[in-house]
């Protein structure tokens, strides 16, 4: 049985607990190479109280190669996310830093972590990153909030 089928069983067995910020993770139309995920924003961040949709696409060589993960377009204001396209800059999702020991749930956990700890040194949104680099977290959070409300 392919590794992703085992992951699916594990995901079905573990998801649904109240404490997890991963709300759902399901293959799209039964196709195990395309997944839809939903995560809750972590507490203590402007993302708290919001739910975000992600798309995960697995190549033929997964888990030797990392999945491609994107937020829904124009849904995630974050200095490491391209707001228009939803693409994410996260080192564990690059072929150089990916490990085949990680699975889709690890990936979602890492993305939730990224929401709590933005990395202004490898930005996809230059403006948000510059505000963070200026050590102005409250302005950063204010701007994120503005995007999320609009």
């Amino acid at each position, binding site marked *: 049985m392919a590794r992703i089928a085992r992951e699916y069983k594990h995901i079905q067995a573990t998801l649904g607990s109240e404490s997890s910020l991963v709300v759902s993770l399901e293959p799209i139309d039964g196709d195990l190479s395309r997944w839809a995920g939903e995560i809750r924003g972590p507490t203590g961040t402007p993302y708290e109280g919001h739910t975000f949709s992600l798309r995960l696409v697995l190549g033929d060589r997964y888990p030797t190669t990392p999945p491609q993960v994107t937020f829904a377009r124009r849904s995630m204001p974050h200095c490491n996310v391209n707001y228009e396209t939803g693409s994410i800059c996260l080192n564990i999702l690059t072929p150089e830093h990916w490990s*085949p020991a990680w699975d889709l749930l690890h990936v979602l956990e890492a993305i939730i972590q990224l929401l709590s700890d933005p990395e202004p040194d490898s930005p996809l949104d230059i403006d948000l990153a510059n505000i963070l680099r200026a050590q102005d977290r409250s302005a950063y959070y204010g701007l994120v909030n503005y995007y999320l409300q609009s």
Partner: protein
Amino acid sequence: MSDTEVRAQLREIFRREGLGDSTTVLQLLSQLIPESLQEEWLDQMAEADKKGCPESFVDSLPRVPKSEISPSSSCSICYVNYLNDGYPLVVRLPHCGHDFDLECLSVWFSKSTSCPLCRDDVLSHRAEVDTSQVELEEDWGMYG
């Protein structure tokens, strides 16, 4: 082959298998650039693809005997319990001690040189062994 033929073939490949077989696509695409650059380009592509461990390294990894495999342990790459297989081929990385199915690890090491669990660069330890052997040979030359 003329450009039109190359285009027709590319269209055929994409219709048949999408981007699945990139080798054929690359070979065809290379025919669209000047002949003098074709070989160099393909060589560079092959080089960029490698970066893994030599096969001899994977072959040299110590096997874990079946009697030492605990019933609950599984491969961190395929997530399958080792003992599901009546004849498990499990190898252990000599430096960090992490173990994996030989088959899973050799696929990973064809592209990478780091342990999937701790990121230890497995080839970095091999170099030390190599130098010591070189020194040994030189000593033999001087005194032998």
